[in-house]
């Protein structure tokens, strides 16, 4: 569903690689967690997947489409919510949602159904006629989530989705992620919250200084580490 092969990225003319020869696969029906310390290269990797940054080398395929050859085709396969979604402040929530539905060419009935459903789940129905500038941080994040779910993407990509959401919303989001995968689609997200990663991810990749140091199911990672410890302890050991 999502495949990275030997992807590398260096910013400007810095010497250090922000992302260094990364490869992994996200399979259909799978929630894939991406964990690592601050500055490890998670956001950089995600930006390359969603065509906000060009890799220096390597290949990324999304649902079978190479995102360097068919950028537009690849873009139709996913939706993306950044860690800190900056949205147009002067635009009303509902106008933003209509825009998203239009650019992904979602039919009238579907867009209405989905938006009503997700607005209810995230409890921002009443705010949706206000300019986004008046939204709180969490409300913006919820709006971006609703906008990203409008076209029911093949791959749902999220950068730090749990930060800033209230407990109810992050509970609902986890349900949505699960449900998404149960329908044969995939979720790929980065997180610092190891408990969440441990509980809901089918597989996990651990990244450190731009390199993947571990990838697999929780059981596989435990086995390699040779312990029955929590992900937190393994993480702390591995990223020492």
């Amino acid at each position, binding site marked *: 569903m999502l495949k990275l092969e030997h992807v590398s990225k260096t*910013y*400007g*003319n*810095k010497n250090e690689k922000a992302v260094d020869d990364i490869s992994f696969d996200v399979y259909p029906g799978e929630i894939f967690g991406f964990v690592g310390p601050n500055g490890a290269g998670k956001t950089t990797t995600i930006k390359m997947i*969603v*065509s*906000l*940054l*060009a890799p220096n080398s390597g290949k990324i395929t999304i649902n079978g489409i190479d995102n360097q050859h068919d*950028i*537009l*085709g690849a*873009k*139709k396969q996913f939706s*993306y919510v*950044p860690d800190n979604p*900056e*949205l*147009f*402040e*002067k*635009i*009303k929530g*509902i*106008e933003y*949602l*209509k*825009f*998203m*539905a*239009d*650019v*992904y*060419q*979602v*039919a*009238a009935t579907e*867009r*209405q159904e989905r*938006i*009503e459903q997700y607005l209810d789940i995230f409890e921002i*129905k*009443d705010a*949706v*006629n*206000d*300019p986004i*500038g*008046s939204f709180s941080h969490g409300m913006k994040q919820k709006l971006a989530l609703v906008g990203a779910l409008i076209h029911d993407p093949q791959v749902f990509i999220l950068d730090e989705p749990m930060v800033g959401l209230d407990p109810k919303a992050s509970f609902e989001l986890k349900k949505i992620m699960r449900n998404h995968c149960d329908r044969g689609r995939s979720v790929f997200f980065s997180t610092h919250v190891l408990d969440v990663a441990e509980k809901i991810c089918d597989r996990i990749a651990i990244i450190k200084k731009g390199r993947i140091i571990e990838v697999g199911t929780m059981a596989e990672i435990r086995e390699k580490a040779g312990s029955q410890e929590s992900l937190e302890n393994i993480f702390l050991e591995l990223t020492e």
Partner: protein
Amino acid sequence: MKEIISLTKLFINESLGFSLFFYNQKFNKKEFYKQLFTLIIVPVALIPAFFMYVSLMSATYFGLTMINQTSVFLSIGYIMATVLIIVFGVMYILSEFYFSDNIEELIPLPINQRKLIVAKFLSILVFEYIFTAFIFLPILIIYGVGQGMGLLYVLLSFLVFLTIPVLPLSLITALIMLMMQSASLKGRKDMLQIVFVFIGIAIIFGVQIWFTSQLGSGDEADFQLLMNTMLTNNESFLNIIGYIIPTSFLMAWTLNKITLMSFAWVGALLGITLLSGALMVAIGERVYIKSIVSGQITKKSKKLSGAERSKALGKKSHGAMAVFTMDLRLLLRTPVYFFNNVSIVIIAPLCIWISFAFIEIPPEDLQGMQEFFRGMPILINFLLIAFFVFFGGTSATTATTFSREGKASWLTRMIPVTARDQIVGRTGVAMLIQSLGIFFTIIAIQFIFPLTLSTLLLTVVLGILGSLPILLFGLFMDMNRPLLNWDNPQKAIKNNMNVVITLFVGMAYTGLLIGFSGLLGYFVNSLLGYGVFLLISIGISVVFYRVISNRLETEFLNFE
């Protein structure tokens, strides 16, 4: 004191973006050279304008010597500088005090309010001193040299120079602070900014209209005549403004003739200036932070019912339409964007209308002009076309279309919208605004100069098509070097080289094209003239369209 200085440095640094500049010097050479180029090219581009200004002022001085009225020279300069400082200052003050994000980060820190206000004020003042130096120093030097002044003049004029921007700026700052805190204006920051700027423009207009009407009935603008009217008229311009800006008298008394009294006058000037500064700080301490803390309210709209929501969501519409709507909304709803890109289409036709309204053309002259036009339609047609192209080219709407989105531009780059839809949507917005300008202009002209339908059709079509290459050139520039890293929408336009480049290139191009096809039309065949104009416009547009649609998706990857 140290704190104030470091805060001032911080604010200046923020508004110029120096830290990013030095970061790029180390880590991103390509960006660095782009910025360096900007830093060099802007002053260089302004040199000719500055020379024109200096020679105009020298001419004014000699004109005044001939009628023995050199004593008003400094006053003219002083008043001019003050008015300009006020007009530009309003924008600076609003954006530094009210529209910059840093204040919210600074309020919680244990920094004395007074220091914060003084530092913000100083950071504006630094720019205004540079500005004043360009406007007023030439005047001081011309007068000093002309009158053969000595060292004392230099000393005194330096002191006077120091006072010039402080007084108007502190008063305006105090005024803005008072207006901003008045409860009824809370939650309407945006509207207020527009209102202020339009007041500034109204002042300039008023002054100009006054000049025009003083000139009498549209005879040649004889400089001496103007001066004589101004000086003999009891309620002359200088006196009127002099009463509004009383310090201009103090300045004139200080510098026109150096006597012992000069020191007293300059002392008074310094005193008043310090007082005005103190007044501003005192008012600021009362109201500024308070209004920042309580004024962060955006007006909320009413809640929508389910039916209203589904109506707002509507049916599937085209990608180009979605881009168009979004771009237009941002343009109309952000005051700075509106002011820079849209207001010109209202102001320019208004200018035409006002100047026609004030210059009374005798009926027989008007008839003569209309006959002349009938005899030589091609001249007037190309003149109109040039004016219509001007609306498209000079507002540089497409040259900031990506820049205006700032940090939210990730959305534009992430969504699957074809390059064609992006180009059509964004160029469409610029064309819509241009069409408004054309529409208003036609209305303004229609009063004096009824145009036939065929003339209208021809000039409008050619005017719009003729500006298409410039619109696409602007889009091309912004695609290649968008300015996204701003915290204040003003920077997306004011610090954006794309605007300047598109403006210069657009004007040069328009001049050349109109000149060339106009000459062809006049000397060879009018149809050939229009035809060549049309072909060149379409040809260049097609080339730019191709280039942009091939490159856009790849360029999106390089935006950050």
